[in-house]
């Protein structure tokens, strides 16, 4: 199967990746080749086969709801590109300009 350019752009948007035009063209070709190879899976009848998400038996992991010391705020923020008042600083999420 061959991906279209608009499919590549759609995937890049889902993945929040800014791509150059060259990258879009390259990924279109390479991802198409990889998906072609993966088509071998479609030949296998898996209708009665349960999926494996993890090799371990699924179980709940419980612990006591006890207060434990947490990392100091300055350590938490030490790698932050921007911080203010003990918080991570971000660009405005909502546009609050009056219309």
């Amino acid at each position, binding site marked *: 199967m061959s991906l279209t350019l608009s*499919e*590549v752009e759609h*995937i*890049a948007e*889902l*993945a*929040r*990746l*800014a*791509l150059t035009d060259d*990258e879009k063209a*390259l*990924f279109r070709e*390479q*991802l198409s*080749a*990889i*998906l072609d*190879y*993966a088509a*071998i*899976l*479609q030949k*296998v009848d*898996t209708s009665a*086969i*349960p*999926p*494996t*998400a*993890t*090799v*371990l038996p699924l179980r709940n*992991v419980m*612990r006591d709801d006890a207060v434990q010391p947490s*990392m100091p705020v300055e*350590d*938490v923020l*030490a*790698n*932050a*590109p*921007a911080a203010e008042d003990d918080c*991570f600083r*971000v*660009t*405005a*999420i909502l546009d609050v300009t009056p219309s």
Partner: protein
Amino acid sequence: MLHDLTIHAAADLLRAGEISSVQLTEALIDRITDVDNDVKAYLTLLPELALEQAAESDKTIAAARAAGSLAALPPLTGIPLAIKDVITVEGVRTTCGSKILENYIAPYPATAIGKLVDSGAVFLGKTNTDEFAMGSSTENSAYFPTHNPWDLSRVPGGSSGGSAAAVAAGECLGALGSDTGGSVRQPASYCGVVGLKPTYGRVSRYGLVAFASSLDQIGTLAKDVTDAALLLGAIAGYDPRDSTSVSVPVPDYLAGIRDQGSGVRGQGSGIRGLRVGVPKEYFIPGMQPEVEAAVRAAIRVIADLGAEVREISLPHTDLALPVYYLIAPAEASANLARYDGIRYGLSVPGETLWDGYRRTRGEGFGSEVKRRIMLGAYALSAGYYDAYYLKAQQARTLIKQDFEAALRDVDVIACPTAPTTAFRIGEKTDDPLSMYLGDVFTLSLNLAGMCGISLPCGFDTAGMPIGLQLMAGAFQEETALAAAFAYEQATEWHLRRPKLEARS
């Protein structure tokens, strides 16, 4: 030369008082100065931390000697190691081979690192890796490629190529790596060292930066099987901080390999009667004939040591590669969503929050990481989830069932680690699919949740090492190590070292 020592030989000399950890650590730092301009195994060197830890270890050893308790010293006391740069060491830069984490200082240590600290280990530095461990050659590092110590024009394998090359080049006595689809075993094979991938759940993943969470596992790179057993013993065990680590007792792996049968090292009597399966699907057209010949010869040695060797079939082997390259990217696309330029890492401002996300990730990630995030996002997206991701998970069940059926009849599965020896730098970078095909013999183990080890079993005519892979069932590391040890003691491949000229 001190840098040529195995961990167990160095530990004996440290206890006998013939060398100090500071001397040993200085010798390793000198060796790195001499050869790492060519090999380029390290991303970050930690000479001050290492010498501080070494001096501390010397005090511990002196105190134990005075108290007559040398036998109780942890086995890694004073031993200089290298750590793959996807595993956090507190206060030390952890880049994952990516520009997006170029200035990231880890605020806490991985559990495996904490355990190594408790064992008295010394950390020489952080080793190169394909970006976020995605790759098979270490060429996907955002910083520089690492070179194979046996031939500097060739790749060391990957993604733990820095760790494997550092061990092979004598730039550390042992190293930690991580293995999601073969990233410890394949570089071990290419560099002629021993690479052990423990069972999923055997070693805590806390502090291992996530790539594919249902497959990732910390593993070890070492010069011989005894060292692999020592390293695994130091890092294995249940960790409440990793809900996928498993509470299974940690055996004494060293005693396990030393007490084989007669109890005499080197006689290999411990694998008499061991049932070894050779999967016919792992000897394929297109593999390098010298690899097949060396692995078949190794299997004959194992048979001569008394193991019962038989051919087996793993019928869904051809599904492993497409299954892996859908599941691992899908998990990666979710895990790498955290790199948003807000809490840590590169941050490229945009006009809006969304724009900032796109630019940060577009500039911060390299090609292979973007490719896998895209592939994963596609496989998980509306309209394609059932055809790709769910289908891959169902086919994963078939692969797992193949191994479960095989392991009812055999104890160990023997096969090549990789279809070829190390290829040349740049040879496969333009063709991702051909790069992925090099992982064809290692992926299935991760998908099935088993353990495995790669160890040297010969060299091709170009002088490049060949790896024998021995796989065993979940939490059967003792069995894999016993088979590997018996083979190793009957052969001399593990004693060869690459010839590297000092050029500082």
